[in-house]
């Protein structure tokens, strides 16, 4: 294979890998990559077979290869039902088109020794990469796409150079051009992160089945039938710019209260049955004015709630985020805290434990809150939180907040502490588009000692909860291990069920959740965790806010949108120094990973590997033994398989049988580590052995070689003088049996080795005339 052919195959391979990396369907990430690798392997096998001796007379593609090429291109449609059954995921139509094009590019690259196939392979692979990079997601596709960029530059250079190089002497391309192309490619790759996200996503519109309202593909992944809505700006006024419609004059931005009610349902107002005593007329005073509203200290959070019935019509799914978070995720953004619980309702925190006044860092606008120079907070996390459409006066902040900055506000008077360590502004609400930058510490659980935790008196009358908590934490040292154990047991043994509602007459929802229902929404998990931890004397509270989900991370925009569904409740325990740290008891929600330590990670990997090996020792031993035996006997196994294939093929005609026999001999020579070179004819290669093997076997070999010449190079009109099929069958069988792998190995050690060392193409050499 020439360099250009190799480059073409590399291009097609990179294109296939890009498609594999870009496929972000429901199947695991490795599945598409494995499929791509399989397609590459098939194309490689075809290429290898062609190199091994499939000839192509002329410069055209034989008809049967055109048929095979077409079938290979349509293979994704053929295997799609089986794939959907195995992985539970269907590919949309455009993706099947892309996979078909991928196969076509690979097949053309396998035939790249034909100039038309070489150019078509380059074109097809380019289109594949362009399409995959446009509609695919995930950072993984950057690597093959960037590699493709480099390789395609080299390919174009080589192609251009070969086109010019009509002279007999082939010269390498000048190095300056290679360097220039490499630098240009590098600049292109480096510029990708700076391209605006919306510019990149424009290319998505080129794919047909997403959007529109005429057809609906159940496998389509986004945008089905929303084209009219986008055009009419029913979903988003910004989608078509300015509009005269009064549809959006009233801002629909939800508040936290709206969000909680939307997520968990409206609180059920209990009928209060009180005993009333009629009072006299003189004690009644008429009030003509408007009743006063109590706006102070009235924030409550009822844990008995009823979910609204689902709307009759299908609601539009809002995709507009409320917040955008840039930085490490997952992340808990606290907005409100509650620390008093009466069994039904959590009440807001006291004003008593507010942090100290904040200071400016230098001239601002960074504000320093407290000194986080404590051993259990190690690294610093930086986040930028942009308020998109969220009506709140509280500033959403991560835990362990160290310092923050709100745009260019450099006055500490602009901020206040709300109840329970929640930062807020003096304004009624944060303006849309406000960015908050924060710096917060990262908790290192290994460094968190029991003395770092704050303790509180347990609530009286919760013996059952206390005994449950002690049972869960028995044997564990005091401190963070116990807290982790409680959260882990809740995650493991209880079911997250957002639709479950505690009975309206339930006196203690935490007990009901823990001992009876064993299922419920996230705030029940948080309540239960807080109750359990309080029973163990840890100072605990409930926090509501947003959970920034890592699976929403937009790798192009480099941020994570926070939508209405991300509202969440969790627990926090207090550490000394007024720091509250997050406890996440709800299944499906995670804490940020602790600071990465190489030694710890390697140790965990080793332990996990040993544990896995211990649990699967029998299977592992069997697999190892099987692998060792297979590797040791791989040549023999391959020989048995090829012999079976030889028996199966070539049954129809004498010439098929003869050629299959020679292929079998070729395979055995290859397995004997001395394959016949492509430039050697079988007669020359095996003829050298005729004198070293049994005479009858040598005679059979000569007969088969003669027949093979006749079958391969004689015109079809001469094939009337056929040898008897029985004679051919017996001779081939004798040769295949006598020319066994062991004999070939023995013969090659003494015979073919010498042949290879002096593989002269002309056996009849005239004597040298030495003066």
């Amino acid at each position: 294979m020439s360099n250009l052919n190799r480059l073409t195959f590399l291009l097609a391979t990179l294109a296939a890998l890009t498609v594999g990396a870009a496929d972000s369907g429901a199947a695991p990430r490795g599945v598409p990559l494995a499929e791509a690798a399989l397609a590459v392997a098939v194309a490689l096998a075809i290429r290898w077979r062609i190199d091994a001796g499939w000839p192509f007379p002329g410069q055209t593609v034989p008809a049967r290869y055109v048929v095979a090429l077409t079938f290979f291109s349509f293979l994704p449609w053929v295997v799609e039902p089986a794939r959907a059954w195995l992985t539970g995921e269907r590919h949309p139509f455009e993706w099947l088109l892309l996979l078909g094009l991928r196969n076509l590019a690979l097949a053309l690259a396998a035939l790249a020794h034909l100039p038309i196939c070489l150019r078509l392979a380059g074109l097809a692979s380019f289109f594949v990469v362009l399409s995959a990079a446009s509609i695919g997601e995930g950072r993984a596709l950057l690597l093959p796409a960037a590699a493709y960029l480099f390789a395609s530059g080299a390919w174009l250079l080589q192609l251009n150079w070969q086109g010019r190089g009509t002279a007999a002497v082939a010269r390498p391309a000048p190095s300056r051009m290679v360097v220039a192309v490499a630098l240009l490619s590098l600049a292109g790759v480096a510029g990708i992160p700076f391209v605006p996200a919306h510019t990149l996503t424009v290319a998505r519109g080129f794919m047909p089945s997403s959007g529109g309202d005429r057809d609906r593909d159940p496998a389509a992944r986004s945008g089905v039938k929303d084209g009219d809505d986008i055009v009419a700006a029913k979903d988003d006024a910004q989608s078509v710019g300015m509009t005269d419609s009064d549809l959006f004059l009233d801002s629909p931005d939800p508040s936290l209260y709206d969000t909680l009610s939307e997520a968990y349902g409206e609180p059920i107002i209990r009928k209060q049955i009180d005993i009333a005593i009629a009072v006299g007329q003189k004690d009644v005073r008429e009030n003509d004015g408007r009743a006063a509203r109590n706006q102070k200290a009235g924030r409550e959070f009822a844990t008995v709630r009823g979910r609204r019935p689902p709307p009759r019509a299908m609601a539009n799914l809002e995709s507009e985020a409320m917040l955008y978070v840039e930085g490490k995720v997952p992340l808990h953004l606290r907005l409100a805290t509650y620390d008093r619980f009466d069994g039904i309702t959590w009440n807001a925190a006291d004003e008593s434990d507010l942090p100290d006044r904040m200071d400016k860092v230098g001239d601002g606008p960074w504000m320093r809150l407290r000194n986080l120079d404590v051993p259990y907070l190690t690294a610093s996390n930086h986040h930028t939180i942009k308020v998109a459409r969220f009506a709140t006066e509280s500033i959403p902040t991560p835990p362990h907040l160290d310092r923050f900055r709100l745009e260019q506000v450099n006055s500490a008077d602009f901020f206040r502490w709300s109840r329970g360590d929640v930062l807020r502004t003096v304004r009624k609400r944060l303006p849309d588009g406000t960015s908050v930058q924060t710096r917060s510490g990262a908790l290192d659980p290994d460094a968190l000692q029991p003395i770092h935790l704050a303790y509180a008196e347990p609530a009286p009358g919760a013996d059952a909860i206390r005994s449950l908590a002690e049972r869960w934490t028995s044997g564990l040292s005091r401190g963070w291990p116990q807290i982790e154990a409680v959260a882990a047991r809740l995650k493991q043994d209880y079911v997250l069920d957002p639709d479950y509602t505690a009975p309206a007459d339930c006196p203690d929802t935490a007990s009901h959740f823990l001992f009876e229902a064993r299922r419920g929404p996230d705030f029940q998990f948080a309540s239960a965790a807080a109750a359990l931890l309080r029973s163990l004397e840890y100072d605990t509270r409930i926090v509501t806010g947003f959970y920034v989900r890592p699976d929403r991370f937009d790798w192009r925009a480099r941020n994570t949108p926070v939508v209405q569904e991300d509202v969440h409740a969790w627990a926090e325990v207090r550490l000394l120094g007024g720091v509250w740290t997050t406890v996440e008891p709800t299944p499906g929600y995670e804490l940020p990973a602790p600071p990465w330590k190489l030694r710890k990670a390697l140790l965990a990997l080793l332990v996990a590997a040993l544990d896995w090996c211990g649990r699967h020792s029998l299977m592992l031993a069997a697999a190892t033994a099987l692998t060792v035996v297979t590797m040791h006997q791989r040549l023999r196994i391959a020989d048995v398989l090829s012999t079976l294939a030889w028996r199966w093929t070539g049954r129809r005609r004498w010439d098929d049988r003869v050629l299959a026999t020679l292929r079998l001999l070729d395979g055995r020579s290859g397995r004997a580590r001395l394959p016949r070179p492509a430039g050697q004819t079988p007669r020359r290669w095996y003829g050298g052995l005729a004198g070293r093997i049994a005479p009858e076997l040598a005679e059979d070999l000569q007969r088969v070689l003669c027949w093979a010449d006749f079958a391969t190079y004689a015109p079809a009109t001469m094939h009337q003088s056929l040898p008897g099929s029985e004679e051919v069958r017996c001779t081939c069988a004798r040769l295949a049996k006598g020319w066994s792998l062991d004999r070939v190995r023995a013969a090659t050690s003494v015979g073919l080795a010498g042949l290879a060392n002096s593989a002269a193409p002309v056996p009849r050499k005239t004597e040298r005339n030495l003066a």
Partner: protein
Amino acid sequence: MSILSPPPFSPQTAPDFLALDRLRAALNRTLLGKPDVVEFVLACLLARGHLLLEDLPGLGKTTLAKGLATGVGGQFARVQCTPDLLPSDLTGVNIFNQKSREFEFLPGPVFTDVLLADEINRTPPRTQSALLEVMAERQVTVDGVQRKLADQFFVIATQNPIEMEGTYPLPEAQLDRFAMKLRIGYPSPDHEQMMLAAAVGDRNSLEPVTALAAGQLGQIQSHVAQVAVEPAVRDYLVRLADASRRHPKVRLGLSPRGLLTWQRVAQAWAYLKHRDFVTPDDVLDVAQPVLDVRLGIDCLSSDQLDTGADPSDPVTREILDSVSVPVFTKPSDAVA
């Protein structure tokens, strides 16, 4: 019928093979211990090509040429090429006949069946080029008049590989007219003893004999031209020629005329093997002498010149090894 040892492929060709066997035997008697050289000479003859022998004096070149002329039943002429040899010395000249008061053409030595041009590289290019038309067209043009040569006209030219002084290397156009270049080499001691024994007495027992009937050579040559070359083999030849043009050590790759010659020699080689189709083995068997004469090789080192080693050998091997042989494909599978 078995195709292991195929008989002549038609009843008409059976006498030809018998005559060829006789000719082969006669030449082997003439040139003792060189059956491979004889086989190449026969292939060159049947392919209607011309032969260049590069060897030392006294190794049997003239004997071989004479034997061949006698074997095919034709005339033999020899020209010793010297620096003062004129083209008209080869082609012939018009002389004025005083009696008839007319010009008469006096034929040169090229008007023969087998011409031995000895030490052809000692004559200047002007005289060498006089052979161009003779070898390619088998005709001579003197004073505007074309004169046909014999149909079986065959040139055996010799040149000395060692003596470089006073020689005029053959131009590429001239070299391309030769079908192949061969070396005879010294015979083995046994064969030299046989040669000496045969020379004792008045009459050499190894004198050549006529093996072919009149006109039989032309008939055999037309049969050779009909030997089948399948598309796969043609494609193989084309790829080999392309590889020769791309090899960095080759100054001048194989020309289309050289490719045609290679195919004709391969046809003749297959015919000599009693086969009526060409295989890649035939192509490879004749590759070395066919390529030797026409590939300009850059790798002539002083060591190679000193030892007389064939400089094109490794290059030819590289060219042949770089092209995959078409195997395991039936003619019905291939679409040209």
